[in-house]
């Protein structure tokens, strides 16, 4: 069992009577890489600032290493921050920026020189010690900010959208480097981001937030494959949302239902009552798509569509290189997005606009949620 580093219990935060965070309970374990993911204004940065000590909880409890952080100022917390705009001290050199934390801790100058050299080495900035931040590129400033925040060996490193100002290629590279750094140092990282790819690529666990609340906490795979509600499902990647109604239950986790007007078999561990409205969620890459006439001709193929076979017509094809997206209109007029991988045996696309097709899915790959609104 790993040790708990940060613990929030029913934390709420108001700004001028406006609730910014509500009912936040969260436990961060030692050495974990945790992401706070959500759209802008969801409260993820406020949550980070609470942990950093720049804001104080209106109610609830915040503990770091078991110690109550109420009224503990930022300088007394074993937590350091990489700010969104880096907040490097413009009047100091790279060396002085990185050394700042150690100087505040009153370390000897020999110790400081050694640690700063190591830290700059770690972020590959050796040789730039005497530069001013203004003379560095965005990526270099980013590295200085990371080295500066890590020099005091914090228990937790807070990162507030640190990569958002970098271009796509550099961002990908920094994602990898940050992840490697975190593994090598074993320090707990808490990253705020609105970018689902970034959160998934780097994190052990992701906290999805919306409107000041936590919607779901889980591993990237859990969040992607088993979203607990439509918001989470829509926020992380593309998804098809089909409407249905329960007809009857057969067995512990099997239901007969009408989905988009077609009788299907559904699997879910949730409890539904006959007559209950529901959503069936399918990732585009989880949808199985075949030509109607192929299914009619092949017994094994039709067996794969036994539990669900929704008829439709191919509307448009979008080519993406390794994959292609097929836009299908179901017979009741609703649209479904399907991602297909290229068939290795054939150079041609398997589908053309106008094709009569059937949609299905592998047993258990559908996510069934109660109807929302």
């Amino acid at each position, binding site marked *: 069992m790993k040790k708990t580093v940060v613990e929030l219990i029913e934390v709420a935060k108001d700004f001028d009577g406006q609730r910014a965070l509500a009912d936040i309970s969260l436990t961060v374990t030692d050495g974990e890489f945790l992401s706070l993911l959500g759209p802008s204004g969801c409260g993820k940065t406020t949550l980070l600032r609470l942990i950093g000590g*720049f804001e104080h909880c209106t109610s609830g409890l915040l503990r770091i290493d078991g110690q109550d952080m109420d009224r503990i100022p930022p*300088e007394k917390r074993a937590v*350091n921050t990489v700010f969104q705009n880096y*907040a490097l001290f*413009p*009047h100091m050199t790279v060396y002085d920026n990185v050394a700042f934390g150690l100087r*505040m801790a009153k370390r000897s100058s020999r110790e400081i020189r050694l640690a700063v050299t190591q830290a700059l080495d770690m972020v590959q900035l050796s040789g730039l010690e005497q530069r001013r931040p203004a003379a560095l590129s965005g990526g270099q400033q980013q590295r200085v900010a990371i080295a500066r925040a890590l020099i005091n060996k914090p228990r937790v490193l807070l990162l507030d959208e640190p990569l958002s100002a970098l271009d796509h290629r550099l961002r990908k590279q920094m994602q990898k480097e940050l992840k490697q750094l975190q593994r090598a140092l074993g320090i707990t990282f808490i990253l705020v981001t609105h970018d689902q790819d970034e959160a998934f690529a780097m994190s052990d666990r992701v906290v999805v937030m919306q409107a000041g609340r936590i919607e779901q906490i889980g591993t990237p795979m859990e969040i992607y494959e088993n979203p607990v509600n439509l918001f989470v499902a829509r926020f992380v990647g593309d998804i098809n949302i089909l409407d249905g109604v329960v007809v009857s239950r057969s067995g512990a986790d099997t239901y007969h239902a009408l989905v988009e007007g077609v009788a299907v078999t559904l699997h879910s561990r949730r409890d539904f009552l006959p007559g209950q409205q529901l959503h069936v969620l399918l990732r585009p890459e989880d949808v199985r798509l075949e030509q109607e006439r192929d299914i009619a001709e092949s017994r094994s193929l039709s067996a794969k569509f036994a539990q669900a076979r929704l008829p439709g017509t191919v509307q448009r094809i979008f080519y993406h290189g390794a994959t292609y997206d097929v836009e299908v209109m179901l017979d009741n007029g609703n649209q479904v997005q399907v991602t297909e991988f290229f068939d290795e045996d054939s150079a041609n696309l398997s589908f053309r606009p106008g094709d009569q097709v059937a949609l299905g899915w592998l047993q258990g790959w559908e996510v069934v949620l109660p109807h929302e609104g």
Partner: protein
Amino acid sequence: MKDNILFRKLLISGTLIWVGLLAVVPYLILLRTSFLERGGEILQAAGWSLANYTRLFSPAVFSMAVDSALLAAGTALLCLLVGYPFAYILVRSGEKAQPLLLLLVMIPFWTNSLIRTYALVIMLKADGIINSLLLRLGLIDQPLQLMYTSVAVFIGLVYTLLPFMILPLFAAFKAMDLQLIEAGRDLGAGPLQTLLRIIVPLTMPGIIAGTMLVFLPALGMFYIADILGGARSMLLGNYIRDQFLVFRDLPMGAAASVAMTVAMGILLLLYYLASRRSGGGHLK
């Protein structure tokens, strides 16, 4: 395009003529006059004398100049001590409060300073507001002599010049990224360390600019010393005015003016060098 160039030439030459006729030429006349003997007129008298400049270092004049400089320095210091926290509060205040607070700084700024100085008389005189208040509170038995003292002149200078300190400081705070304060705290600096190592260095251009804008005028605002300080000439400005208008010693007044201008020039040069050395680069 051609019109544009013509327009620019007109504009620039107009400005040059304006500055030349109304600033450079008079100043050259002043400079020339400062080397004349007493009673000399620039158009007739000849010769070059350093007598006036030597007189500047006579004990009476020199100690007056030192006192004036000390008074101006004290004014700048008090303005800084009051203005610095105020400018910080100003930049931190909300969208609604900030324009209001700025207006409070600007209103006296826009009011004629003679009127404001006479208003101070009402505050400071023996039966004035301050004395009657203190008497009524029982803090003093008889009225304090505030008027016609250097304290009154000091109060008048601070009051008049405070906006000149606050505005550059406000600009410096505005140019500073306030998140740097959080970054300092985050890295273990307490409030005092954050102030000394981050806030003060980053607002140094504002501190220097404000100090200059207060110190230099405080040497010369003779009417404040006249109204609040009485007959004694306390400021360099009074001395110069008296040489010109009371004693009619034009060359001596000119020499004092030139000396004061040179002193100011040296200070401005130091300011320029300091602002260049402090990197300038960090003010994006």
